[in-house]
Structure formats: structure tokens, C-alpha cells
């Protein structure tokens, strides 16, 4: 991206510039107008040219880093500006328009061009030590790259005793005080339990929970509540969902095909389990990048590498080698970005084509990572310990042997019969007098016959005698016996065609039988059953049919896209019940050796042999059933790791066809002074060692980024906004920390607690900063409208999942079963590519928590998508909270919400009766964790009286308070 502040003039401005440039004539170089390379020329080239013309990019094979190319290619002829091509290309274009260079961005000003001219005229001196490069805005001194600072805890004057007791509060209070702000008093208990319950578990507290918390006046009541919620399995569901956002976990591959991936869910369960078990985060990182190495014996560790392959990738298959190389590079790029952003908060992807423009990340770093991930391939594999594999083999092997034995016997018997048949082949084949079926056109003529119906029954396709569907017919003609004959099967004459066809859910007629009588070729009926029946508009005397699967001869005769009818029977009927066979393929030559053999076999086989074959088939079916009943070894979407051997190169300009310097595995040059990769890791090390080395570097205690980024994520989810408000970007383009010292203190706590998160959660939740009320104060808002400094607990809208799960929960419909394959709120259609159609009716099988929804890319699901559940095309380190009329339409009208309103009403009636004050109070308790005030109560009672409890519940599920957390 070009510099964010760059103002690229509007086009008319450019045109005016161009015009001025045209009328401008070179003036003599004024004496005393000294041009200094370092001061005048270097910065000019760096600003306008170096982005494309640098050694890592070399557009047009020109680098402007040093004088070499410039003089060698004659761009500059020292002393002779008029012969220097450089001045031509930056000068006005032929028609007075845009200069040829720079191709993008702002053209050089007249003054700049004049400087270049003067410099060339003066001999174009380029000091040999002047190497030009595009400099990033931030260098290694950038705040997030510094070691964690361990300053003293602040002790601001006037800090209340309750705030003084905890480090977090001291930092927060100090910052407030600096800005003349004070915090709010503590939140009331009902608000607090709703806040902390939704925050930790994603679910609202039950009325009983609220009641007992309100009744417990012991000083440790809140701490006990926090401990209980942290120990709840729902904690892992809520916080695991956060992490799945960060690692862009999605269960379809995206791009054109976007097919569902049905075995990635074990990773989702692993994440939830890891959070619930409070697995140290450094361990999680190691497992994410190299679980296959660390967990060769343990599927629950190996599954971590799903992280590498749960992003979108292009699997369409491309025969064009150049495009295929770009696709591969883009696939690895996606892994590199995900790793950099999730763990380190660095946007390393920006260094794919050139050094990072804003952060000190080199293109060499990027390709070092490329070499690290070069062995990553998207896909699944068996994830099982050696013991599991042995146990499985012990059960499967005997059955496989039986399968083989029966198969062998069957083949031998077949061969015996075939041998006998072969001896009599002449006799059998003598009846095959006609040519075989022909995809380009197959004809049957017969004695003229009166017919209303014509039926083709297929016994086998022309590639497989045992398969009677899956063939295609592009046209099926039925010719009348009159002169000249007419094709009476045409739909335009009123005929109809029927036959089972492959279904494309979103366009039902895509492959339908009507295509056989539309009078055109090119589109084919794709049969899903053996019969095609044509009903003529009226009875006609017919004498010939003609059909094909590739009439225009578009493809070679055996192409797999024109599979045709093999063995068939053609019948006609006048009444649709009595059929007369007019022709069949019995007297045609077989379309293949397979067909020939099959025909010979059935002709020659004795009754005993037939019985024996049937027995064998039955036994085989039995064995196959037993095999199928054995649970297969788990095959999970954890990626495949192989190859990836070097040497690796920088791709100049990001183009795999243009190789630059050799790349070696590395961390990040700007951080390696603090934490280095092990010396011995090179591009020659096995690919898993390269990944493991990078993982170890990421979690090295000296690496300041990882712990900072992690601590900030916790803060972000607890308070709604992070100390840094761009949780996956700690670079120049990201936000700056509101509380840098606090962030470093928290990051140090990460190490202090051995990367366990629950102690950190507890510190945050026990702080007064977290427990204060969210009451609005005009004076404070004037200074800090967003409450980034936490003069109040910032209220926020709940996430899509929280909203949906809360509805299920208060309606008493939530299915709390954890784990396993996900449910779907869309109809999945796969016809070459995938289509996702959101469901109108959500059945009880979908009433599990939203984290178990199989989130596909580029699909939209009412409720979830409407409330900003992100498309996992990218990582979503922070969620949007937008407001749209679609949300209103969904919450008011979608059958799911109505269903929940009804279920909630039924629950309220069950627990508190159907009329009077009781049910109204209960409905408020369940949805808002509070009692209604007098105005609300009377309005609610009158609504219930006129329109029933469901109307009240529908309103409560729609109200702002229900979907806000404060």
C-alpha cells in the first residue's frame, strides 16, 4: 500500500500538471545551484522509484539501489541530460499526459525533474557507498520490539484503598488521574454477574445463579463466582471461540470450490479442551506449528497442526505451470500471515513482494518463513498412535484376507466360465451383427408403429456394463414414418421427457431430461436412473430413433464427459402400460471388451455356477459389511508434511518465476538481537525441525512480542478493546498502547504464570477496573468518549454467538453437549462447486452452542452473519459490532427467533403461570437478569393480556438490553 497520507491528485489536476509540463522549457543550469546526491537525488529516487526498482523487485530489470544498472543500461549519460533516458521517462507523456514513470503514484514535480537534470548535467555523481533502499516507517526501535520493561508500580496520589491493592488498578488509576479522570463506583451485583457470566462463558446467568449471588454477602462471593465460571466447561467454549477467530478457523476451503471440510472439527474441540485444561500457551504454540512432531504418539497433540491448514486455499487444479506456482506461493503466504498475526501481532505478509513499508520486516525474513513452511500441504491424514494403528490392523487384517480369498475364488470361477465361453465365442458373437453404440449418434430403425410413449431402458453404460445410471444424452430424436419424417419428440411440438437426473439444488433443471428433446446439443441429460421416457404430444406412426451424447463431436470418442448408453432396450406404447420392444443392443457389437466378456459370461454360465457366484457375492457382502462396521482410524484435517526441500529463494516482486537471493529459515531480523533461531537450523534441516525451531523462537522468553500480544488479547476480550486496539498488528499501522507499562507488566505475568491463562483472567476479573459500573458520565465522556482509559466499564454489544446462545439458553432449549462434528444452519449443495443456502427452519439438532456450527467460508447464515460473525476468509482479531436493518428483520421475523420466543413463553408459563405479575417478572429475570420497573411492568402486563406471553418474549429477545453487556 502506498503511503497512507499520500495525496494522489485528482485527474484533472494531473492533466493541468501535464499541460504545464508541456509548456515548460528547460532553462540553463544556474551557477551555484549545487545538487547534492545524498540530499537531493537519493531521497527523490527513494520516494518515487525504489519501490519497484529495488534489488528484490527489479521491475524492468532495473535496480536503482546503486549506480550500476543506471549507467550500464544508459539511463543516465553523465553530463548529457538530453541523452539520458531517465529524464524522458519521468517527463510528460507523448500527448502531454501522464509521464511513463512512475507507473503508479505521484509523478515527479517540475522542480524534482530540474534537480535530476542538474545532477546529470553536473556529472551524475553517485557515491559508491550510497545504497538506496525503501525504508520502513518504523525500525528496530519500534515500541513493540523492545524487551519487556519492568518499571515500578505507580502509586498515584489519592488512589482509593480498594484500587491500591491490585497492580492493574494502580496502572489504570494512574492513567485516569493523569487525565483528570476518576473511575466509576463498583457495578451492582446483578449487572456484575451478568457481565462476568457472558464474558467468561458466553451465556447469561440463570435466575437461580443471580438470586444466590445476590443473597451471598460474604466478601469472597465474587471471587467464588469467578472461580466457578473459570472452571465451567463453557469457559473453553467461549474463549476457544475467540481463539478460533484469531486463527481464521473455517471448515470449507474457500476459493472457487469452497467445499466443506468435515474433519477439521477435532481442532475446534482441541482448542476448547486446551482452554478448559488451561494448557500453557507456549505449549499451544508449539503444538500449532509442530504438533505432528511433538505428538507422534498422541492424536490430541498432533491435531494442533490443523492451525496451519485451516485457512482458505485454492484447490481447483491448474494445468498452467506459472499459475500453479503462484497458487502454491499464495497457499504458503496464507500460513505465514496467519502465524505472524496470531502469535506475534506482525503483518509479515506485507513483506511478500518487498521489504515491509512500515515495519522493520525484511523480504528475507518473509522468505525465511517461506522456507520453514514449504513442506506444509493442505489435507488430512490418519491421526493415531502406533498402538491404535496396531489394534486396528489386528481387527481388519483377517477380514481383508477373507475378502481377498473370496475375490480370488470368484475370479477363478469367472475365468473358467470365460474360458469355455471363449471356445464357443464364434457361436455367441455371431448374433452381434450391428455396429456398437456410438456417442456421436446411435440409430434404431424399425417397422412403422403407432406410439404415444417411447421408452429407453439402460442396462449398462458404454464404459461399465454393471452401471445403469450416470450416462448422458444430449438429444433423443423420435422420427415419424411420414414423408418427409419429423422429429416428433421435440418439446416445441408438445412432447415431454421424464427420467431421473442428477440434481443441482439451486437450479433444479440443470441436468434434466428436458435437455434430450430441446432440439439443441451441448447440454446433456445426466441420468441418475436407468430410464428415459418420452411422451409424444399425440400418437404418431414412428419408424426411427436417433440418440447421442456428443452429437457435435466436440470431444474424443471415449472422453469421460460424454459417457453414453451401453446396453439398452427400446420400447413403445400407446397407453403407457403395455409396452412393445422395438429394438435393443443385444444384436449390436459390444462397446468394449468388458461388455463382451460380460455378455459371454452370462450366456455360458450354468445354473450351479450361477448359484455359486451368488453365494460368493453374498459372503463378500458380509465381509464388506463387517469391515465397514469397524470404526476407521481417525482421519483428521491436520495437514500433510513432506518435501519442502531447498534451496529457497526470495521471489522478486513476489513472483515465483523471478528468483533472488537464497533464503534461510529465520525469525525476524528486528527481534533476533533479543531472541535468535538456533544456529543449526538451515534450509537443509528436515522441514518439521524448521517449523519446530520457529515455534520455539516464537515462545522464547526473550521474544517480547508473543507475551505482549497474548496479554493484550485477554484485555481486548474482557474490556471490549485492547490496550492496543489492533490485537493482531503491533506495528506502525496498528494502534498504540493506551497503557504501555501495564501491558508490559501483564506480559511479564504471562511468563510468571508459565503461560497459563486462568490466573491472568482472574487478575483482570478481580480488578476494580473490571468491576466498576458502566454508568455514563458526561464530564468523563468529554475527555475520553470511548472509555479507553476505563473511567467506566465500557458497555458493548454481544457477539453473534452470545446473542444466539443466550436466546437458546433463556428459552431452555440449549443443548449443552460438547464436541464432535458440527451442525449446519445452511443447506449444503455441492455440484462441482459448493453453494450454501441459509435455512429457514432451525431444528433441535442445531440447538448446540454456536461454536459447534460448521462455519463455511463465503456463506451467510441469518442470526450469526447478521451480527458480525466473520467470514473466516481472514483472521478476525476483533469483531465488528454493526447495526443494520437486516438484524431487525432477522430478529423480528426469522422462524428461529419466533421459535425461541414461543419456547421462552412456554417456560415462563411453566415456571410462573400465564397471567398476572408473576410471568412478566420471570420473563425479565430470564432475559435481562433483573425485575421490571413499574412502567415496564404495566406495559408488559397489558401486552401479555392482549397478545399473550409470546409477544412479550419476542419483544424481550429483540430489545437492546438483551443483546448488550454492561
Amino acid at each position: 500500500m502506498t503511503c497512507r497520507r499520500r495525496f494522489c491528485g485528482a485527474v484533472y489536476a494531473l492533466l493541468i500538471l501535464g499541460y504545464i509540463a508541456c509548456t515548460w522549457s528547460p532553462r540553463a543550469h544556474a551557477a551555484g545551484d549545487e545538487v547534492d546526491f545524498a540530499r537531493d537525488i537519493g531521497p527523490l529516487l527513494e520516494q518515487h522509484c525504489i519501490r519497484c526498482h529495488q534489488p528484490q523487485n527489479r521491475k524492468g530489470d532495473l535496480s536503482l539501489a546503486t549506480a550500476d544498472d543506471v549507467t550500464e543500461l544508459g539511463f543516465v549519460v553523465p553530463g548529457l541530460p538530453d541523452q539520458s533516458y531517465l529524464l524522458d521517462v519521468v517527463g510528460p507523456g507523448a500527448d502531454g499526459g501522464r509521464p511513463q514513470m512512475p507507473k503508479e503514484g505521484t509523478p515527479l514535480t517540475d522542480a524534482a525533474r530540474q534537480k535530476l537534470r542538474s545532477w546529470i548535467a553536473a556529472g551524475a555523481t553517485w557515491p559508491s557507498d550510497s545504497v538506496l533502499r525503501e525504508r520502513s516507517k518504523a525500525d528496530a526501535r519500534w515500541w513493540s520490539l523492545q524487551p519487556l520493561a519492568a518499571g515500578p508500580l505507580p502509586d498515584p496520589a489519592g488512589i482509593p484503598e480498594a484500587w491500591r491493592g491490585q497492580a492493574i488498578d494502580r496502572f489504570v488509576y494512574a492513567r485516569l488521574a493523569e487525565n483528570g479522570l476518576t473511575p466509576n463506583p463498583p457495578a451492582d451485583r446483578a449487572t456484575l454477574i451478568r457481565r462476568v457470566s457472558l464474558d467468561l462463558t458466553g451465556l447469561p446467568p440463570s435466575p437461580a445463579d443471580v438470586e444466590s449471588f445476590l443473597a451471598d454477602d460474604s466478601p469472597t462471593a465474587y471471587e467464588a463466582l469467578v472461580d466457578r465460571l473459570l472452571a465451567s466447561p463453557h469457559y473453553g467454549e467461549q474463549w476457544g471461540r475467540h481463539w478460533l477467530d484469531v486463527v481464521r478457523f473455517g471448515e470449507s476451503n474457500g476459493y472457487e470450490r469452497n467445499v466443506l471440510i468435515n474433519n477439521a472439527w477435532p481442532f475446534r474441540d482441541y482448542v476448547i479442551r486446551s482452554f478448559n485444561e488451561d494448557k500453557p500457551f507456549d505449549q499451544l504454540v508449539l503444538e500449532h506449528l509442530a504438533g505432528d512432531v511433538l505428538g507422534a504418539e498422541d492424536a490430541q497433540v498432533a491435531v494442533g497442526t490443523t492451525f496451519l491448514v485451516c485457512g482458505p486455499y485454492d484447490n481447483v487444479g491448474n494445468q498452467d505451470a506459472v499459475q500453479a506456482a503462484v497458487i502454491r506461493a499464495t497457499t504458503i503466504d496464507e500460513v505465514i500471515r496467519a502465524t505472524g498475526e496470531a502469535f506475534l501481532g506482525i503483518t509479515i505478509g506485507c513483506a511478500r513482494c518487498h521489504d515491509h513499508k512500515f515495519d522493520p520486516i525484511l523480504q528475507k525474513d518473509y522468505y525465511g518463513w517461506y522456507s520453514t513452511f514449504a513442506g506444509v500441504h493442505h489435507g488430512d491424514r490418519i491421526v493415531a498412535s502406533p498402538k491404535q494403528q496396531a489394534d486396528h490392523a489386528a481387527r481388519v487384517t483377517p477380514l481383508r484376507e477373507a475378502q481377498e480369498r473370496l475375490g480370488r475364488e470368484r475370479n477363478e470361477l469367472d475365468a473358467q466360465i470365460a474360458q469355455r465361453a471363449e471356445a464357443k465365442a464364434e457361436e455367441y458373437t455371431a448374433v452381434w451383427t450391428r455396429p456398437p453404440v456410438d456417442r456421436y449418434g446411435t440409430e434404431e430403425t424399425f417397422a412403422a408403429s403407432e406410439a404415444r410413449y417411447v421408452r429407453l431402458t439402460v442396462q449398462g453404460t458404454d464404459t461399465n456394463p454393471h452401471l445403469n445410471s450416470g450416462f448422458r444424452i444430449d438429444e433423443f430424436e423420435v422420427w415419424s414414418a411420414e414423408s418427409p419424417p419429423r422429429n416428433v419428440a421435440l418439446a416445441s411440438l408438445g412432447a415431454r421427457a421424464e427420467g431421473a437426473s442428477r440434481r443441482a439444488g439451486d437450479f433444479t433443471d440443470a441436468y434434466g431430461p428436458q435437455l434430450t428433446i430441446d432440439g439443441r446439443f451441448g447440454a446433456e441429460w445426466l441420468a441418475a436412473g436407468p430410464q428415459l421416457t418420452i411422451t409424444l404430444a399425440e400418437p404418431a406412426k414412428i419408424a426411427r430413433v436417433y440418440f447421442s451424447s456428443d452429437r457435435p463431436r466436440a470431444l474424443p470418442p471415449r472422453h469421460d464427459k460424454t459417457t453414453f448408453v451401453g446396453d439398452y432396450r427400446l420400447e413403445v406404447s400407446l397407453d403407457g402400460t403395455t409396452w412393445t420392444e422395438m429394438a435393443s443392443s443385444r444384436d449390436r457389437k459390444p462397446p468394449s471388451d468388458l461388455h463382451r466378456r460380460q455378455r459371454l459370461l452370462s450366456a455360458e454360465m450354468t445354473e450351479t455356477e450361477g448359484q455359486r457366484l451368488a453365494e460368493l457375492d453374498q459372503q463378500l457382502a458380509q465381509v464388506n459389511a463387517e469391515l465397514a462396521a469397524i470404526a476407521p482410524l481417525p482421519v483428521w484435517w491436520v495437514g500433510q508434511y513432506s518435501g519442502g526441500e531447498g534451496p529457497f529463494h526470495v521471489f522478486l516482486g513476489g513472483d515465483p518465476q523471478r528468483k533472488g537471493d537464497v533464503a534461510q529459515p529465520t525469525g525476524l531480523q528486528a527481534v533476533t538481537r533479543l531472541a535468535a533461531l538456533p544456529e543449526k537450523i538451515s534450509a537443509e534441516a528436515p522441514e518439521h525441525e524448521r517449523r519446530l525451531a520457529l515455534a520455539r523462537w516464537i515462545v522464547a522468553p526473550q521474544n517480547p512480542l508473543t507475551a505482549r500480544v497474548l496479554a493484550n488479547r485477554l484485555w481486548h476480550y474482557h474490556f471490549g478493546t485492547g490496550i492496543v486496539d489492533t490485537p493482531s498488528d503491533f506495528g506502525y499501522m496498528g494502534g498504540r498502547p493506551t497503557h504501555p507499562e501495564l501491558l508490559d507488566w501483564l506480559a511479564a505475568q504471562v511468563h510468571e504464570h508459565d503461560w497459563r491463562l486462568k490466573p491472568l483472567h482472574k487478575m483482570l476479573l478481580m480488578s476494580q477496573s473490571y468491576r466498576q459500573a458502566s454508568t455514563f458520565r458526561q464530564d468523563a465522556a468529554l475527555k475520553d468518549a470511548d472509555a479507553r482509559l476505563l473511567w467506566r466499564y465500557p458497555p458493548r454489544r454481544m457477539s453473534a454467538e452470545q446473542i444466539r446462545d443466550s436466546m437458546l439458553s433463556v428459552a431452555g432449549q440449549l443443548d449443552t453437549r460438547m464436541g464432535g462434528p458440527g451442525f449446519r444452519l445452511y443447506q449444503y449443495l455441492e455440484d462441482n462447486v459448493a453453494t450454501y443456502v441459509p435455512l429457514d427452519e432451525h431444528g433441535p439438532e442445531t440447538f448446540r452452542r454456536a461454536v459447534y456450527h460448521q462455519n463455511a467460508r463465503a456463506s451467510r447464515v441469518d442470526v450469526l452473519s447478521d451480527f458480525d460473525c466473520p467470514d473466516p476468509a481472514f483472521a478476525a482479531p476483533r469483531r465488528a459490532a454493526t447495526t443494520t436493518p437486516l438484524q431487525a428483520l432477522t430478529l423480528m421475523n426469522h422462524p428461529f427467533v419466533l421459535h425461541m420466543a414461543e419456547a421462552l413463553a412456554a417456560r415462563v408459563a411453566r415456571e410462573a403461570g400465564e397471567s398476572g405479575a408473576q410471568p412478566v417478572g420471570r420473563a425479565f429475570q430470564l432475559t435481562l437478569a433483573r425485575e421490571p420497573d413499574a412502567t415496564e411492568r404495566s406495559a408488559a402486563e397489558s401486552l401479555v393480556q392482549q397478545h399473550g406471553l409470546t409477544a412479550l418474549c419476542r419483544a424481550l429477545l429483540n430489545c437492546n438490553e438483551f443483546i448488550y453487556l454492561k
Partner: protein
Amino acid sequence: MSIELPSSSSDRAAYEILSRRGFLGNVYTALAGIGLAHLFSRDAGAAEAAWRAGAAQTHFPAKAQRVLQVFCPGAASHMDLWEHKPELEKMDGQPLPGEENLVSFQGQNGNLMRSPWPFQPAGQSGKMFSTLLPHLAAHVDDMAFLHSMTSKTNTHGPGCVFMNTGHPTEGFPSAGAWLSYALGSANENLPTYVAIPDIRGEPPNGKANWSNGFLPSRHQAIMMAAHQPIRNLRRPGIISADQEQATREFLSLLNERHAASDPGNTDLPARMAAYDLAARMQMSAPEVMALETEPASVHRLYGTDDANPLKAAYARNCLLARRLLERGVRYVNLYCASRASGVDGLLNWDAHKTLKPDYERHAPVFDQPTAALLTDLKQQGLLDDTLVLWTTEFGRMPTHQVGTTGRDHNPDGFTCWMMGAGIRGGVCHGATDPFGRRAVDPVTTIWDFYATVLHLLGFDHTRLTWYHNGLDRRLTDVHGALIPAILA
């Protein structure tokens, strides 16, 4: 479909803060608040320019008020529809010079294959135009052809997404979403941005083509078509109008009291306004879809009652598009054909196998209704300030695929065209080489295309940005230059 949020700055950070907090009617609070917030965003003092996103303001005066983008997915062949190639006709059956062993997306290519349809002069300009599109030929004098378009990908899904979002990977905002973000809504009762999928289904990569990407979700296109009303639009049958009214009144009471407890949070009134807008949409959307109110002559012009059900369905969508545009919808993304299917070339313009029968299937569906829509827009005077774009994801090869009479994917050269507001009609900018294989100078990119579109809409494409995962993102990525040759 946008909640208008007042803001005081063009800067992304400020916009975002505002859109999150939305300081309706409390300007002094907002300004003071931003002051502090800016201490923590990357550039203090960023609030310098006068332009505000989402407030119906442009960077400079706009030629176009709205956009109609017709998209023919499947890679509609440039040399069979738009760009006449006499040399290709002469060299029919000969090897493609210099690329005798060309391997492309699906594999090996055969020799050159001329277009099965003759071209003939059309309009005052006499542009050679395919006889496959007789109705559209009547409009050539208003069209500006970009004959040297190029793409970065030869795969449909990424190609479609690239053509719509400026990026071949999904997850980026589409042009309509950018416009919605830039301008906000022009109609209080209808969506700002509408995608009309074909009756045959969604295009390759589906909804990613009209996604809001990382922009706030209110900028996504609302999907609707003559055959497919907006989701969840209708009040459920079991709820009476009375009950609906009473429920909404009670809801308002709850929301007003809740909002009063937190006057600093203008998300709350914004959400209440969204409920009102939704209610208005429930009234106005069925009205816009009431095609039967159009005179019979209009239906005949479009072909809405054609015997070909695909053509009739597309014609109804064309008519719907006009009704949306005239009611203030800013961006209509209209599709003619759908995704790749199990039979190449059946559901869209992807004629790998049998070019002639395929296109003789697709062209009649596309031709008359599209031409009618252009005629209608012109007659209604809408064309003066409506920019019409015709797009496809890439072109096709001048050769046939080995063993077929179809053409493979070609990202190196294809045609798009524009017409209407601010466009010089009857112009052909750029060309492919004599065979149609590659775009030749001046080559245009999808980024140039959108730099020009945004220019006509009053925006400098380099200044319409949104921060996302480390970058200020643009519709034109880091590229794009205006194409002055096609401007009126």
C-alpha cells in the same frame, strides 16, 4: 442500507470511532472524545481533510450517482462477443504463432479457432460487432469498450472475486460495498447495494462477490431477485398486524428507557432507527418487486414473458434492476448466468467444450433483456447519471482446447465495457493482439477499471481507504490509474 453517522473527519480512525460510538447530535462530546482517542491511534492529528465517509459526500464533483454492473460469469469470450479479430478468421486452423504448445487452465490447446459468428458494422461508429448480440448492437455508440483488460488469475472463483473486489482472494469488500461505505444511503427505505443473482444460482465463489469484506456489515449487498425476495422480509403469518404493532410499541418503550440510561452510547438509538428502517423496507421492498405494475409494452421490451424460462427470468431481473436504480439504490450487481457446473458451459459462459451451442444458449438470454434495460434507462433519463458496467472475470483463448470445439480460460486479455454517466460512447480503448491472445498496449487492469469507476463517482481511488490487518486497504489494492480515453 446504512445508518448515517455524522463525523468530522475523513480519517478512518475517526470514522471508525464514530461508527462504533456514533455521536449523534452531541458534537462537542464527539470532538473532545476523538481528541483523546487519537493519542492512541497511529497518527495524532489525522483529522485534516474535509471529506467524510458515509455522508453522501464525494472527493470532487461526481458524474455518476449510481452504478449498474452487469456480470456474465464463466468468462464470456471477448473475441466471440465484442472484439472482432479478422486475423483470427484468416488463420483459422493454424497453430497460434509463438505458442504452438500452449498449456492453459484445463491443459493442452489446439490450433486457432475463428469465431463461429460473423461480425458486422454497428451504429454510427460502425464498430464491428458480433451478430450473436443483435439487440445490444443498437447500443454500441454509447458504449466505451476496454478491449485490453487483464486479470491475475485464470480460475473462475478468484477471477470473479477479483473483478468485483480488486483482489483475487476472498474477504475483500466489493465495489458496491466501497460505494456504500463512501456515500451512505440515498434511500431511506431500500438497501444501498443490491445483488441480483441469476435464476440458475450464484456465480462462482457465491456471496464473496458482493461481500462487505472487512467493512462493516451494513455495506454488504442485500440479495434479491424477481424470483427471490429479501430474506426475513415478511412478518410471519401467525402474527397479526395488531400484535406486531403492540410488540413494536413495547419494544420501543424498553429501548428508549435503556438508551436513556446510557446517553453516551448512540449505538442504541442507531439500533432503534434500524428497526424503523426495517419496517419501512417491509413496505417498500414488495412495492419495488411489483413488476406487474409495469405496462405491457415494457414487459415486451424486456422479454419477461419469453418462452425461454431462463431469458424470462433474467428479463424480470433486468426490470427489477431498473426499478431499484430509479428508487435510489446506489449499486446494483446483476448477474446473467451462474457457477461452473458438472457440464462445462451449461450454467454459465464457460464454453470449454462446445462454444457454438453453448453461446447460442446463453446469448439470447442475455441480449434482448440487457439491451432493453439500456434502452429503458436511456428513455427514463437515468443513463445521464447512471454508470453502466459490463464485466466478466477474464477472456478465452483464441485456440480451441485439444479434442474440443471450446475455448480455455485466458486471463491475458479480455473485454469489459462501460456506458452512461461520464462515459464517452463509441470508443474502443486498447486491444488484444491480432488473435485475441494477449492484451497489448495500452493494457488495462481491473484496478484501472475501478480507479475510473471511482473517479466517475467522485472519488480519488487512492484516498478511499479502510484499515484492515496492517494496511489501509483500497478497492484498487496498491495499483490503478485512471483511463482518461473513455471519459466524456
